[in-house]
C-alpha cells in the first residue's frame, strides 16, 4: 500500500515538473527551511563575487548592457513552449546555451538576475529560496554545461558537429545535475527539520522520493528540451559565422583542471548526504565505538593515544550550532584547508622548478 502511495507521489512530482505552465525547478518559499535557504545563499555568494569580477574584467564597460540583454533573452527563452518528440511540450532554462555563447560567468550573473525577476514579479521561485534556486540553476547548471561542452568538444574544429553534440550533451547533463541538487535540497528537509511529534515542517518528502522524482522528470522532459534548444540555436549561430565565447578562449590544459575543480566542488556539496547514513565510517573508530562494535577490549596503543590530539572541530561540528550547518561548514573548512595546502605546495614546487631551469 505504502509503495503504491509512493508511486503516486512520484507521478504527481513528475507531472508537476514537466507541466506546461510551471517553471522547471524553481523552489518556492516554504519548501526549504530558513537554515537551508541561508546555507544556499552562502554557497552562492562566492560564485556571484567571482562572476562579477570576471565579467567586469572580460567585458569592461560593456558589462551591464551585454549581460542585461543576454539575461532578457534568457527570460524570453524560458517562456517558450518547446515542442518535444512525442507530442508534449517542455520548457528550457538556456543556462548552458548562455554559458557557451556569452561565457560561464556572464551566464551566472544573467540567470541569477532572471531568477530574481521571476521571483519578484511572477512568484516563480521564492525570495528566501533565491539563493538555492540561483545555486542550482544559475551557478551549477551553466558551469557544468560549459565544462562538459569544453571537454567533449576537445580540439574539434570550430562549428563542427562534435561541438553541437558537446553542447547538447552539456545541456542535458547540466540540467539533470541541477535537478539532482534540487532533489537533495528538498529531500533532506523532512530528515532534518521536523517538530517534536515528527511532523515535517517543510518539504514532506524524503530523498527516496524527492531525488528520483526530480531526476526522472528532468531526464526525460526538461533535459531533452534543453538539449534541443541549445543544439538548434547553436547550429543556426554556427551557420551565421557566430563564434561563441566558449570557443574564443584559449583552450589550453586548464579545461580539464577546471573540470577537476568542478568535480571536487560537487563532491564537497554532496557530503551532507553522509548525514543520512547510519553507523560509523569503517576504520574510523574511536575508543567507545570499538567497544560498541563488540571488540570486547580496546588495544592498549589506541587507549594511550586517544585524546592526544584535540581536534579543532570535534566530530566535524561547531559548538552551539545545528548539526548540518556545522557539518557543511566543516566540509568547507576542510576542503579549503586541503586546497590551500596543495596550492602552497604547488607554488613552492613550481618556483623551485623554475629556479632549477634558470
Amino acid at each position, binding site marked *: 500500500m505504502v509503495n503504491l502511495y509512493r508511486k503516486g507521489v512520484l507521478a*504527481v512530482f513528475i507531472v508537476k515538473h514537466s507541466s506546461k505552465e510551471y517553471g522547471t525547478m524553481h523552489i518556492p518559499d*516554504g*519548501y526549504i527551511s530558513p537554515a537551508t535557504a541561508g546555507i544556499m545563499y552562502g554557497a552562492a555568494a562566492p560564485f556571484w563575487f567571482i562572476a562579477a569580477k570576471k565579467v567586469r574584467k572580460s567585458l569592461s564597460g560593456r558589462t551591464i*548592457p551585454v549581460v542585461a540583454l543576454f539575461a*532578457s533573452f534568457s*527570460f524570453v527563452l524560458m517562456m517558450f513552449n518547446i515542442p518535444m518528440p512525442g507530442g508534449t511540450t517542455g520548457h528550457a532554462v538556456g543556462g548552458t546555451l548562455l554559458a557557451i555563447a556569452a561565457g560561464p560567468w556572464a551566464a551566472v550573473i544573467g540567470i541569477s*538576475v532572471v531568477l530574481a525577476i521571476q521571483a519578484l514579479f511572477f512568484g516563480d521561485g521564492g525570495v528566501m529560496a533565491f539563493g538555492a534556486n540561483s545555486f542550482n540553476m544559475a551557478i551549477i547548471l551553466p558551469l557544468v554545461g560549459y565544462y562538459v561542452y569544453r571537454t567533449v568538444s576537445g580540439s574539434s574544429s570550430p562549428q563542427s558537429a562534435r561541438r553541437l553534440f558537446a553542447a547538447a550533451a552539456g545541456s542535458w547533463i547540466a540540467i539533470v545535475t541541477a535537478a539532482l541538487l534540487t532533489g537533495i535540497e528538498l529531500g533532506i528537509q523532512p530528515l532534518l527539520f521536523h517538530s517534536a511529534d515528527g511532523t515535517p515542517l517543510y518539504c514532506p518528502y524524503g530523498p527516496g522520493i524527492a531525488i528520483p522524482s526530480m531526476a526522472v522528470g528532468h531526464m526525460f522532459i526538461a533535459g531533452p528540451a534543453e538539449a534541443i534548444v541549445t543544439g538548434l540555436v547553436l547550429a543556426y549561430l554556427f551557420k551565421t559565422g557566430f563564434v561563441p565565447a566558449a570557443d574564443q578562449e584559449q583552450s589550453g590544459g586548464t579545461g580539464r583542471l577546471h573540470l577537476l575543480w568542478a568535480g571536487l566542488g560537487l563532491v564537497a556539496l554532496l557530503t551532507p548526504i553522509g548525514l543520512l547514513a547510519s553507523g560509523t565510517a569503517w576504520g574510523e573508530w574511536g575508543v567507545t565505538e570499538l567497544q560498541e562494535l563488540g571488540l570486547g577490549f580496546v588495544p592498549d596503543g589506541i587507549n594511550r593515544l586517544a585524546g592526544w590530539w584535540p581536534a579543532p572541530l570535534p566530530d566535524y561540528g561547531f559548538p552551539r550550532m545545528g548539526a548540518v550547518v556545522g557539518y557543511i561548514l566543516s566540509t568547507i573548512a576542510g576542503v579549503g584547508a586541503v586546497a590551500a595546502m596543495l596550492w602552497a605546495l604547488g607554488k613552492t614546487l613550481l618556483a623551485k622548478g623554475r629556479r632549477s631551469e634558470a
Partner: protein
Amino acid sequence: MLKAAEVKRKDVLSQNIFAVTKGLESAITTEHYSRYDGLLQRLDPRVKLATFAVLTAAVSFTESLAVLAVMLILVPLPGILSGIRPGFLLKRILLFIPVFTAVIAIPALFITKGDPLLSVGGHTIVTVQGAKTAAFLVLRVTDSLSLGALLVLTTPWTKLLATFRWFRIPSLFVSILSMTYRYIFVLLHTVNNMFLARKSRTPGTLTAKENRKWLGHTLAATMVKSLHISEQVYSAMLSRGYRDDRLTITRFKLHHRDLLWLLFASTVLTLSVWTG
C-alpha cells in the same frame, strides 16, 4: 493590443503567443497598481521592503500553524486597502503555485508516519502528522507568495531598485536587474511580432519537427538581435557620458505613516515569534 484570452491555444505557435502576451499583460497590471494612491503605495519603500523581508522570514521560521493561518488572512488586508481588487489579488496569489503545492501535498497526508487521524477498518489512512505537514507546506507557500505579490504590486519598479541600492546591493547587480527588466519587454514584443508574422503566413499547422526547427531559428535570431541591441545601448550610454556608476534620482523621506506601519509589522512579528 492582443489579449491573451483571445488567443486560441491549439498549436505551439499560439501557445507561445499566449505565454508571451500573458507575461506582458501581467507586468502592465503590476505597474498599474503600483501607481495607485493607496495605503501600501504611500509607505516609504525602504520600510516596506524591510518589513516584508522580515515577515517573509517569520513565515519561514515559525513552527505554528496558527501563526501561518492568521497571516493568510491578515496579509491580503492591507492590499485590499491599497486599492487592489480582492479577486485580482486572490487570482494572482492563489493560482498556480499554491494549487500545485496543494496537489503535491496530498500524498503526504497518507504516507507520513504518525498518530492516526482518520482510520477505516483498523487501517490508518490519514495521520495527524501528515495533515499537519500538508497544511504547513500549503500555508507557508501561500503566505510567502502573498507577501511578495503585495510588495511588487504596490511599489513602482524604479523605487524598488533604488531601495535595493540603499540596502547596499552591489550597483552592478542592480543596474543589470533594471536593464534586464526593461529589455525583457522589448524582446517579448519582438518575439511576439515574429510569432504573429509566422502565424499569419502559415496555413494549417506545422509538424512538431518543423515547429522545433523554426523555434530554434527564432531564438537564435533573437539572441543575435539582443547582442546588436546591447551594442547600440552601450554606444547610447557612452554618448550620454556613462561612467560605469549608477546614480539614482529617488530621494527617500520617512513619514509618520511609515512609523505606524513599522509598529504594526513589529507587532505581527513579535506575536508570531511569541506564539510559534
